[in-house]
């Protein structure tokens, strides 16, 4: 790691870039599988059966992680670029949002 990159905003940039590339690779495959519903339903069924394998389920976690990282990274960029707030105000807003997610997420897990 070169010295000038060793700080949180640069890591946030790289995380956003890598998750974006990962999602860009996933999307064509996603659309291809969806199209099987029309073109080859039997193949789709076979694929869905394969997708139930534990390792694929684990990979799904990675996919949701990429999506979440990219989504919130995008919100971060929008807030950074379009809200003329101070760094401290943004940190408080992000902290409040994260706290709200934590509490409502725990409630949801409890309810399910």
């Amino acid at each position, binding site marked *: 790691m*070169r*010295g000038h990159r*060793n700080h949180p905003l640069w890591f946030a940039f790289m995380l956003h870039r890598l998750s974006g590339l990962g999602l860009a690779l996933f999307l064509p495959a996603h659309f291809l599988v969806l199209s099987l519903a029309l073109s080859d339903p039997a193949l789709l069924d076979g694929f869905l059966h394969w997708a139930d394998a534990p390792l694929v389920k684990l990979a799904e976690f990675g996919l949701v992680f990429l999506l979440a990282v990219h989504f919130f990274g995008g919100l971060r960029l929008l807030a950074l670029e379009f809200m003329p707030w101070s760094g401290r105000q943004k940190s408080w807003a992000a902290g409040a949002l994260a706290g709200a997610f934590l509490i409502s997420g725990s409630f949801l897990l409890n309810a399910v």
Partner: protein
Amino acid sequence: MTQEHDTLEVSVWRGDADRGQFETHRVPAYDNQTVLDVVSWIQQQVDPTLTYRFACRVGMCGSCAMTVNGTPRWTCRTHVNKVLKDGRLDIAPLRNLPVIKDLVTDMDPFFDKWIRAGGAHAPSASRHDPIVEISPQSEGRATADAGIECINCSVCYAACDTVSANPDYLGPAALQRAWTVVNDEKHGDRQAVLDTVSAAGGCHNCHSMGSCTMHCPNDLDPLGAILGLKRATARGVFKRRR
């Protein structure tokens, strides 16, 4: 007086635009020592052909910036103790600028971009007009003041990966200058500056990595200035559509 008690292992980049290599020297270590002191010691005691640039030695002129252990820094105000890694220092020229010789880079591309970004002052009045009163507390003046302490050292420019990827990109220092001008009520054509910085190579190329603000030796916030330009130009687009 400080006491000499040990030595540092210092690798210094030697070469020109085409090729070069690091040369390693043992340099006496002192309690109080800047990276520029180390470079000067090598030039004065070991090899007078070592080429580097400095002038004021007090962090005002912006001429002594180099890459120290991978990070761009003003060497005259960088304490060796603060940046030493395992008793070693790697000293190289700044990134993103052509090397002339050893530690000296050609700053022309950097300064040319200040001009390209609309950094030159365009007067809005002549000497015959009355002086317009601007309150130092006004929002525009306060915003402009935040950027005018730039010493043109090019540390932010060397730290920026967007500059590395796109040589056309104006870079943090030139854009911060443009933001200062946009907030200067006495500037004659602020809209022209906004148009310039929103064109190709302008503020919208910035990926908000923040290395400029992170490494600015004067604690300025070029990223904040670029974000200001992004907001101002985006607002301009929506206004024109109405």
